[in-house]
């Protein structure tokens, strides 16, 4: 099961809506071994595509180093499907390289509702898991990401220039 703060889900959905019809992608980092996503990091989709996403290689290195320095790991790796359901495509499965991560998919194909689903992808095997959305204010990290997620006017999402 993936437990994730409501404010982080809201920020991910906002990111996916902002980049629609292109696919949006990113990470939610959390303390190593905690299985708790606390720090939302929207990533640039270097492919800038409606049907494909790829982290920019230099941003990828920077963010992974930063997580290493902070004793964090990628707890959630998310991306959006903008015209199809929130289920991993064969492409998603073949590229899934973080066996410890929750792969969160958001579908933005419907204009006023989102489909949000989470999967484990290990050795090519997809296992869906429940998503438990935790209301904000439970722990201080969650409150921090709430501030981050809810202040898009002051945050450079690195895709705002498009």
């Amino acid at each position, binding site marked *: 099961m993936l437990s994730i703060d409501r404010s982080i889900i809201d920020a991910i959905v906002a990111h996916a809506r902002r980049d629609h019809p292109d696919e949006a*992608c990113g990470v939610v980092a959390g303390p190593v071994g905690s299985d708790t996503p606390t720090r939302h990091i929207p990533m640039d989709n270097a492919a800038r595509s409606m049907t494909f996403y790829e982290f920019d290689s230099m941003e990828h290195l920077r963010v992974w180093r930063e997580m290493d320095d902070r004793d964090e790991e990628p707890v959630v790796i998310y991306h959006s499907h903008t015209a199809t359901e929130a289920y991993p495509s064969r492409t998603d499965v073949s590229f899934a390289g973080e*066996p410890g991560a929750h792969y969160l998919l958001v579908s933005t194909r419907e204009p006023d509702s989102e489909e949000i689903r989470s999967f484990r992808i290990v050795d090519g095997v997809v296992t869906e898991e429940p998503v438990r959305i935790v209301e904000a204010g439970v722990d201080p990290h969650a409150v921090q990401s709430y501030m981050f997620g809810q202040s898009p006017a002051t945050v450079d999402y690195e895709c705002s220039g498009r």
Partner: protein
Amino acid sequence: MAIEVRIPTILRSYTGGAKVVDGTGDTLGDLLADLDSRHAGLRGRLVTEAGALHRFVNVYVNDEDVRFLGALDAKLSDGDSVTILPAVAGGAFGFAAAAAISQHAVAAR
């Protein structure tokens, strides 16, 4: 000549779980051959049968993506740090099309 190599989680089955291993080589290609002599199978996850770096594996020397340094011909020096990260990629794109792009990218190098 020792070069530190950072191994991603998904490839640690080849290094007995080690996150960092040491290797030697004047180029990235030499380094991967050296690593493969102690961690059999590792090179095959990074290099295609045609002998090019896989399109969806990112390898960095210090802070630089090796694609801008000559890929497998990238020169290495004592004390360099090499980081391997599997690309984070996917999407609704059909598998065949993604594979075609991947092959094209390999062939173009």
